[in-house]
């Protein structure tokens, strides 16, 4: 799949119609989403033939992108049933076979290391304090190969320290800095849209074999 083609397919996906402020529901645009999965596939081999999970999948853009890039199985998780409904319509429209799960990522009960790679655009923690770090912590426990995640550039040092020191990542690298455009969906955004600096990270988890 070509990058342009991926971006255009993602651009057709339906997005949140009534975003819920407290869940920080804003989509990853097709431009950024396509580049995340394209990089994960082309530069690192983290997608094709893998089991990929999308944490906080919303309308399923990142999970769909993973499936389009050749993930063998995709598991998309969100706390919100309205998002999951839209995400499963989107998957149907693209004829993608995606596994959905309704769960709070913060207290996900999980066994083993079946998931290779996790892609996510977690809540930045502006409404639920620390949500981004809880997502990252869980992702580093569950995946066996790599975690791709977006975090505000202003938190870069903190993210790096927490990942390496507290969550046992063996590598944490900023792949690029992006301008992330959050459209004005919420009344507390004073300007018409907010453009914030966001880092795309790739983390490598330390895998501790659990006893079977």
């Amino acid at each position, binding site marked *: 799949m070509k990058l342009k083609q991926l971006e255009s397919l993602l651009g057709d996906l339906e997005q949140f119609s009534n975003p819920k402020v407290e869940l920080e529901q804003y989509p990853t645009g097709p431009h950024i989403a396509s580049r995340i999965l394209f990089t994960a596939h082309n530069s690192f081999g983290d997608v094709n*033939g893998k*089991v990929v999970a999308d944490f906080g999948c919303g309308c399923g853009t990142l999970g769909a992108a993973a499936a389009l890039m050749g993930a*063998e*199985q995709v*598991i998309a998780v969100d*706390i919100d*049933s309205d998002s*999951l409904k839209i995400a*499963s319509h989107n998957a149907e429209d693209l004829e993608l*076979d995606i*596994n*959905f*799960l*309704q*769960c*709070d990522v913060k*207290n*996900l*009960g*999980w*066994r*083993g*290391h*079946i*998931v290779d790679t996790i892609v996510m655009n977690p809540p930045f923690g502006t409404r639920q304090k620390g949500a981004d770090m809880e997502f990252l912590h869980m992702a580093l426990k569950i995946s066996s190969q790599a975690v791709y995640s977006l975090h505000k550039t202003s938190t870069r040092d903190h993210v790096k320290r927490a990942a390496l020191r507290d969550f046992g990542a063996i590598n944490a690298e900023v792949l690029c800095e992006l301008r992330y455009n959050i459209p004005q969906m919420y009344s507390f955004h004073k300007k018409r849209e907010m453009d914030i600096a966001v880092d795309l990270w790739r983390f490598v988890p330390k895998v501790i074999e659990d006893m*079977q």
Partner: protein
Amino acid sequence: MRLLTHNMLSSNIKGVTNGFPLGIEVEKVIEKQVDFNPDFLRNMFAKVEWKALVDAARTMGYAELPEEADLSMLESDDFLKRFHHALLELHLEEGALVCPETGRKFPVNKGIPNMLLLEDEV
């Protein structure tokens, strides 16, 4: 819900020490065909809890998996096809997952398990 997902979900209710594997209550099972990929299956074999898969498949009406399996079986196409079918093609469309310690049911509707906990379960 595929049994692949079932094989990695566990009950996370406060106080539960071993929430795996979840029991399965079947209302409706469907089958969806998936491309057969032997390399993927060989890789999955090492990560799957075999007994949980065998029991779950049997509950869903598929009893063709051997009770015990070892690496030598990965040479056999016949074995891989059964493994493939159980892991990827069977879906719990309607029913519930059941916490093995408390009996709490997590509903599965339209193939999507709802693992959300109530406030006093967190």
